[in-house]
């Protein structure tokens, strides 16, 4: 594994935004209500970006503008910080010895960011959206932590590069499928999409998306797709063997797998109704949490047995 100079962060950011763009284009393509021709649908991120760049930013009476804007930029920044520790093939921007914990810590930053994006706008619907994210986070965070624990235990290291290396013989998705599925669910949850599009629900006029317009809105929407991309890239490194694969170079395998995971997540969104906070708690704490705990136990016993 090679770590580049500080500017190694730039390609990572570029790849992240590229994958996020691809996710947005696919979302447009799959949406039958997006227009009559394929080009028109797939071009959605371009049209939307142009529209939002042209639109004026608006303010709200007595909004806490500083904290609001910090919150709006939060998801995009968090996504960038997440991928910094995720290897693309055999290159990684920052090879932290505690990469798995770093990823989790960044995810927890989102609690503050989305809450501020809702609260800072001084709007009842925004506030409800912020609350909703916290309620949802309470549900998905513990299962996510344990799902992250499983690959770390199996690899005996918190360094993501070590986790990738430990999958040389067998991808972790094969012997920890529950952790993999819970992780993907958590990715949908922290990117506020699909069954977890609750903090930005249409029933509260967009929730955290009620008030921002123009560039503010663009940053938040881009952040959501970037989180989806960052989550998918991490899933590839932790469960799908990272850059391992025949013929193609390692970085290309990482990219292909990441795009495949993103495509699966995007295709799933919108097919499943949104889970309200009370239902999320039931699913997360009575279903996902015991299942991931059992998964970690099984993985730990196997790891000890091997030795």
């Amino acid at each position, binding site marked *: 594994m090679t770590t580049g100079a500080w500017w190694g962060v730039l390609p990572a950011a570029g790849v992240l935004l590229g994958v996020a763009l691809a996710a947005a284009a696919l979302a447009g393509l799959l949406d039958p209500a997006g227009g009559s021709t394929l080009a028109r649908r797939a071009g959605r991120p371009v049209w939307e970006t*142009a*529209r939002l760049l042209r*639109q004026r930013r*608006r303010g709200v009476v*007595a909004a806490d503008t500083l904290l609001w804007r910090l919150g709006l930029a939060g998801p995009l920044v968090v996504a960038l910080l997440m991928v910094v520790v995720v290897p693309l093939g055999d290159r990684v921007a920052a090879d932290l010895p505690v990469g798995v914990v770093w990823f989790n810590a960044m995810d927890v930053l989102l609690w503050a960011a989305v809450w501020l994006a809702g609260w800072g706008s001084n709007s009842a619907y925004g506030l*409800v959206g912020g609350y909703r994210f916290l309620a949802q986070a309470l549900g998905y965070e513990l299962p996510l932590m344990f799902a992250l624990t499983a690959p770390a235990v199996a690899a005996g290291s918190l360094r993501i590069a070590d986790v990738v290396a430990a999958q040389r013989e067998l991808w972790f998705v094969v012997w920890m499928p529950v952790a993999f599925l819970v992780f993907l669910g958590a990715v949908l949850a922290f990117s506020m999409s699909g069954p977890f*599009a609750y903090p930005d629900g*249409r029933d509260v006029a967009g929730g955290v998306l009620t008030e921002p317009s123009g560039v503010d809105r663009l940053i938040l929407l881009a952040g959501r797709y970037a989180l989806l991309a960052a989550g998918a890239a991490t899933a590839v490194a932790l469960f799908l063997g990272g850059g391992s694969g025949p013929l193609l170079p390692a970085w290309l395998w990482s990219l292909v797998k990441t795009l495949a995971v993103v495509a699966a997540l995007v295709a799933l969104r919108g097919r499943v109704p949104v889970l309200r*906070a009370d239902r999320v708690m039931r699913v997360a704490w009575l279903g996902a949490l015991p299942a991931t705990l059992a998964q970690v136990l099984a993985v730990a016993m196997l790891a000890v047995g091997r030795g």
Partner: protein
Amino acid sequence: MGLTGELLARWAARRPHLLVAAAPGASAARLAVEAQADRAGWPLAAAPADADVLVVAGDPGPELSAAIERVWDQFPGPRARVRVVDPADVASGLAAAVARLTGTAGERPDPGPDGAQLDGGSGRHGHGDHGGMSMPGGLMMAERAEDRDGLKLDALHLALGPVLADWPAGLVVELAVQGDVVQSASARVLPPADPAAVRPYPDVDHPGLRRRRQAVAHLDSLSRLWAVVGWPAGAATARRLRDALVDDVPLAAAYAGFRPLDRRARRSHALRRATDGLGVLSAVTAVRAGVEIPATACGDATARWRRRLAETDRLLSGGEPDTSPEPDAVAVRELAAHLMVGLDLAAARVVLASFDPDPDELVAARMRS
């Protein structure tokens, strides 16, 4: 405008977002607007911050007009507005509005409200007339009140509607919420300019058209409910079917399209989990609320959307249009508001959408009495 500006405007024009503000009695115009938006691939915005074009469907009365003006003031700009009354004018009206938005109509687009940084309202659609201390910005502080657990919590007055996505035209539900739990709810409809002229959408003499329009109304209600529940795929399919029926496709073709949707909805556990046990209406509840119970509205939200599916199935497979007297619209509205109390905002909206009180019917009922 520079070259970049022109390019941005051209790209932006591919996907303008519409905010539809409909007056009661203008169902036909609203349906035409939504169908045209779907054909052109233009999304319907959930809030003014997300919208470029304000579409006023029908002829709103003074109070509804004032509310629409407040919403218009919250458009970030560039913005355009258009009013449509006749469904036949919808396509040209919307196209002209989009041309004004991008400046291709030869005039400069409306840049947005002056000093767009302030919008001067407490909620987006609030009718802030509550006593109490005021804050900088002219906003009211929330008052404190006892909550259901005997705690003293801030009570916020929040008005849902009259301009809200997936919401009955002109309906306003005034809520007092603590956290996001509804403590009290009262509903009313802001009438159109000429309430005497309002005829409910399915209320036509020709039986074939009546059958078709009843099915359209059911599918419209279902699409709204599913959008509120957060099932965009189901909502979009129901809306497509609805638009096809308005467009006079043969009933058999509509039925063939309806069957898979019906199956998918009935088989979806996730959908049932989202609506089960919400807004359970029993005879006891109705008596306590002091209203006469319409038999078709019993059970929970799931039972109500299943009944709508069954009724749509019956109509589309050639059944006779429903000639039983309409349930008392005012009673339905009161019950829906009553059942919202004690639920969180999300569940309360599902309950209201499961009843989906028809504002045309409400206005007509008021004129009769």
